[in-house]
Each structure stands twice: as structure tokens, then as C-alpha cells.
């Protein structure tokens, strides 16, 4: 598993299985060796994932509980499935084609309030590409956040906080050394951002103690952001009231 999402409306947990090119949905309280309630897998799904995950293909996913959809970054495309889909089902929408500028879509998040999809594309230059939520086919992104000022070198999990229009992005830093990688931070952009713009806020390697952050989620009730750090094998929780 390389991604996990919780659907608070339907009390379900969603994960990927990269090797079996599958999306698994579990009930919210699942524990132990419990079978998923639904599996999306098969030739009609077109699931292939992203090349940057190596053979770790179907890498990440996102759930939109408001519009009842599951979204998957799929290399050269974004696949959208009905949330309740099960088995070998075709996506209801596919964003794909030269105009999309998608070459290695590896991570994404949906903002159901602003009707936007934010996609992390790992191909050079690494970029956040923003699409309308209901886009379909060969469509241009409405915004591309990329360039040296962004500090984006690679991307982990992305999350959005729709009431404020924030995009939270894990930046695990330069490849190479297991530590001292440089460029490690959790960055916050706005869905209104476009171009070569730095994040609005950054939590980094200093006081933040981040080594290789790859996962991010948040608890708006307590105004906290949780970061999964793979080098530390740890979850770090930050009080971050500015964004809530």
C-alpha cells in the first residue's frame, strides 16, 4: 500500500495495491485480516499507475465523498470511478491527451468545494497541475504550479483543505542520500496559485525535524496536520492553526 484515504461521510477506508493494480475499499472500523467490501480491478479499469513508482504502479488514490467518486493518478492520465464501483469497471471519466500535459501523474487530491483536481506530476519539471473536477478527455490544466521558486523536486501525498482552498504537499527532497537530502518540507499552496510560486507556508527539516515526508493528513477540529515520514518511520503531528 502506498496511499490511504478515509471517507468520513461513508465511513470507509480506501487503499491501493500497486502490484495487483487494484483499489481496495474497507469499512471504516476494519481490523485484522478483514476482506475489503469492494475491489476495483481488471482490464476495463485501465489501471496502470505511474512510472515514477517503478513497478509500484497504482500508487495513490483520492476519494471525493461529496460527489461520490474515486480518483486515481495514472501516469499519463487521471481516472475517475464511481465511489461505489466494484469489480472490473470502466472509469466514468478519463483526463488524458497531449493538452493535459500529464506524463507521470503520481499523486493527487480533490477539492470538492472549488470543483478542482490537483495532480502531482513527477516528470520534469515536477509540477502541480490543476484541472476542473468534471474535466474529461484531452483538456488543458487550468493552472500549473512549477519552477525553481516552488521547491518541488518530487512529491508524496497531497491533501486539500477545501474551506480555505489550501493544497498541502509533502516534498521528500532530493534523491540520493538517505538523509541530508535538502529540499525537504511540507508546503502549502492555494488552489488559486499558478506558475512559479513558492508555497505560502513551509514546515521543514529544522524545528520540524522532517527527514523524508511522504504522507500528509489533517484534523481540522484540533487544527493539526499529521505527516508520515518514511526515514523516521514515524508520524509527526504539528499544530498549524494558520491554515484552518
Amino acid at each position, binding site marked *: *500500500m502506498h496511499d490511504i484515504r478515509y471517507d468520513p461521510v461513508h465511513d470507509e477506508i480506501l487503499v491501493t495495491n500497486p502490484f495487483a493494480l487494484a483499489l481496495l475499499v474497507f469499512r471504516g472500523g476494519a481490523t485484522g485480516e478483514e476482506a475489503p467490501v469492494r475491489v476495483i480491478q481488471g482490464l476495463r479499469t485501465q489501471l496502470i499507475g505511474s512510472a515514477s513508482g517503478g513497478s509500484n504502479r497504482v500508487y495513490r488514490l483520492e476519494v471525493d465523498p461529496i460527489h461520490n467518486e474515486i480518483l486515481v493518478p495514472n501516469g499519463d492520465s487521471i481516472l475517475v470511478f464511481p465511489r461505489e464501483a466494484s469489480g472490473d469497471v470502466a472509469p466514468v471519466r478519463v483526463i488524458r491527451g497531449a493538452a493535459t500535459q500529464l506524463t507521470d501523474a503520481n499523486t493527487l487530491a480533490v477539492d470538492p468545494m472549488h470543483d478542482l483536481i490537483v495532480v502531482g506530476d513527477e516528470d520534469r519539471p515536477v509540477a502541480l497541475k490543476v484541472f476542473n473536477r468534471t474535466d474529461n478527455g484531452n483538456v488543458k490544466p487550468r493552472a500549473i504550479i512549477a519552477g525553481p521558486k516552488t521547491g518541488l523536486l518530487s512529491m508524496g501525498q497531497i491533501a486539500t483543505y477545501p474551506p480555505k482552498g489550501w493544497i498541502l504537499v509533502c516534498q521528500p527532497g532530493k534523491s540520493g542520500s538517505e538523509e541530508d537530502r535538502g529540499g525537504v518540507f511540507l508546503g502549502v499552496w492555494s488552489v488559486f496559485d499558478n506558475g512559479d510560486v513558492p508555497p505560502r507556508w513551509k514546515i521543514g527539516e529544522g524545528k520540524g525535524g522532517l527527514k523524508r515526508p511522504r504522507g500528509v493528513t489533517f484534523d*481540522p477540529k484540533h487544527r493539526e496536520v499529521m505527516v508520515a515520514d*518514511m526515514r523516521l518511520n514515524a*508520524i509527526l503531528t504539528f*499544530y498549524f492553526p*494558520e491554515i484552518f
Partner: protein
Amino acid sequence: MCCLRRFTGNLRLVVLISLIGTAGYVLVVGRTTRPAMIAASQQALRRPVGRPQLVRSESRASSDGEMCEWMPVNGQVTLASAIQHQGRLNTDPAGQGDEERTSIDADRAPIRIIRDSFPTYSAVAVDLKSNEVYLQDENLFGLKIFNRLDDTPPAARFTEPKRTIGGLETRLEFNCALYVDPKTGDVYSVNNDTVGLMTVFPHDAKGNVAPMRSLKTPHGTFGIAVNEEAQELFLTVQHDNAVVVFRKTAEKDEAPIRLLQGEQTRLADPHGIALDSKNNLLFVTNHGSVHQVIPPKKPRAAGSGKPNWPSGRLDGPVPGSGKFNPPSITVYPLKASGDTPPVHVIEGPKTQLNWPSTLALYPDRGELFVANDTGDSILVFRTTDNGDIPPLRVIKGPKTGLSYPTGLFADTKNGELWAADMGNHSATVYPLTANGDVAPLRTVRSAPLGKAALDIGNPGAAAYDSKRDEILVPN
């Protein structure tokens, strides 16, 4: 909590107003006599009682919501309902133009950290010459070396290792398999995910030292086995459903000399590997997740165009070709290559296989040991077994101390079977003939007794379950 805070704030305001009023009255009126004050108070329907009194009450100015903003019981559900009922933002909430934008350095210390501070062992190997046991720590990274006969007393907090190998120079991170050369004592350690190297250390290595040699491996290698007679080194490759064979002393960018890969092989998320050079057999455990790969049309950058490099990384899977196969042990001729089908397959519900990981052989008895990770057990099969057959023996139960065993080593010299337990910071030792719910002969424990491992390993994501106030972490 917010209501209590507001009440306390009002009370303080009232007390303050009362004190200021009293002091001001005294200052303004000057030497007013006590009878005059009493008369004035009575006139104002107040009596002196020796403590501050309510003079006047006013509501506080409305707050900006920072302190006592209404907060729902379930933040996420309300977030969802807010999304359904509120309008979207139409302007940039920060109101900054892109041109002058700079980042706000919001760096701060975390208020909480969930992290296991003890080693978690993924693999075990014994140096029978030095009587030392090597444990691979996949939580804090590195190798911990103990005496073979170390046994942590129940009252002890943990056993200190004789020495450790770890640190950035070692390139040890998320390593999952070990091999100790029976002649030289050199230690081979296989990285699974992040570094892409198999590293080799001399038997007396200690501390933060560079490996004596390293070999670039395909991404997602897991198991290791060595054919000492043929001087060949075998590695399983999870991500590409393959087995690659190198010269035993291969290093740097050297290419594999053989590759076993393809649909006929039935390799599916392969993990453990064991060799029977006497009977010329190769055994592999499979978790079962698999997809088809597109055959390469050109040399791949990932393998620098090396021969026998497994396809899959850049050529990619066939879209939608993923499948869940049952967990299995597939058996091949020792020199198998290409898309060779297995000669035997141990698979089915009677086998009890459940995420079968490391394999070990006891050739004299023709027995195959399986670290059965999520089964919390060690399964023993005959090397000639085939099909859906029950194990010959099963080590499982509360007395065994087994908890998510992933590593295994058969010490045929001393008649012992070692397990590395990912779930409890321990390695446990049994007789090679053990069966059932048996207590270990010895336990090397690296955390206080009963302390379960957090098992956060290589976390790539997180989710917050607002209903249960829980953080979900995939590994």
C-alpha cells in the same frame, strides 16, 4: 471548554470593573466618611459586605473567533457538510499577488511524534564460525549482532547487542534479507525499496562504516540465497515478479547472469528464496499480487540496458492486468531461467500460507521452513510437497512468542531454527523439530517484555479517521 473559558473571562472582567470602580470612587470622593459611603451604597441598593460586588455587567465585545470559534464534535463530517452547503472561495484567501509572494517560514516543532524507539527485526542469520547472530533492524536501520546463546531474561529491559552496524555510510535502510558467508563470515544485506543496493560487510564490521562492496539491484528485491558450489547469488524481485541470479561476488553495476520471469513462472510478489543444491531445486514464496508486464522493446534506463534485468519498470504493466493469486511456494529447477513454469506448486487453503516470507531448508531431512508472516506461524513442508497439502508441522500459538515472523534461519549444525519477529522487537529460537505451541529455547529481545512493535514501516501516506479520532498509516 470554550464556555468555561468565556465564563471565567466574564468573571474576571466583573471583578476588575468592581475593583477599578471602588478605587476610582475613593480617589474621586477623597476623604469620604464611612457613614456617607454606606448611605450612598444603600441609595444605590448596595451594601458593603467586605468583598467586591457586582457594580455593572457588560457583554464583551464580540471575539474574532480565534479563541472560541464553534467547533463541531466531528470535524471531518462537518468539513464535508460545509463543502456541500457553503459556497466556494472566489478569491485568493491570502490576497497576495504571485509576483511579490514569499513563503512564510512556518517551521515549528511537532507537538506529538508516534515513533517506535526500539529495533524491529526483519531478518536473521547466524555466523556458525563466530557463534554470532545477526539481526536486521528495519525500524531504526542497521544490523545488531548478538552472541548465539544470548537469552534475554524476562525481567531484563532488553539485551544489548555485542556490536552494531548502522549509519549513513552503511547504506542500510529498509533492508529485509541477510546471508552470512559460511567460510568468510562476510555479511550480505539486501535493501528492499529505497536504496537499490545489496551491501556486503566484513565479519568484524562495526559502527557507521561503508560496505566492503555493494551491488546495484533491481528495485524491490527481497530474498537472498547463495549457491556456494556454483558461486551464484539469487535475489527475488517483488516489484517485477522475478528472480535474478548474479555471480556471488558481483558488485557495482554488474548485470545478472540469469533471469527467471514471465507468466509461466507463476511468480507473484515473490519474497523468500531457498536453494537445494543436492536435488537441484529452487524454492520461492509468493504473496500472490501480480500483474502482466509489457515485454521491453529497447534497453531500459533503469537497468542501463543490462542483460537479464527484469522487465517491468519502464516498460510497465499491461493496463488493468492486476490479479490476486493465492499465496504459494513455487519450485523450479535450480538453473531455471526465462519464462519457466514451476515443477511443483504448494498452494491452497490446507497449506495455511499467509504472506509467506523467508524460506529455510533442512536438506538432510528434506524439510522446508516458511516464515508465515500474517499467520504468526512457522510452517514446515517436505521439499517434495506439491498442491494443496497441510504442513508437516506448524509452530504457532501464544507460547511461541512468534509475532509477524518474516525472517528465518535454519542452524542445522546446532539443530536450531531462528525466527525474526517484526511484531515484538525479538528473535526467537526453537528446536528444528519443534511442532505446535512450543516456547522458544531462547529469546533475544530488544525492548521491554510485552512491548508490541508499532510496525510503522516505510510509511508513504496517512489518513485521519475523524469518526474514531484515529490516524491510519499504510506500510
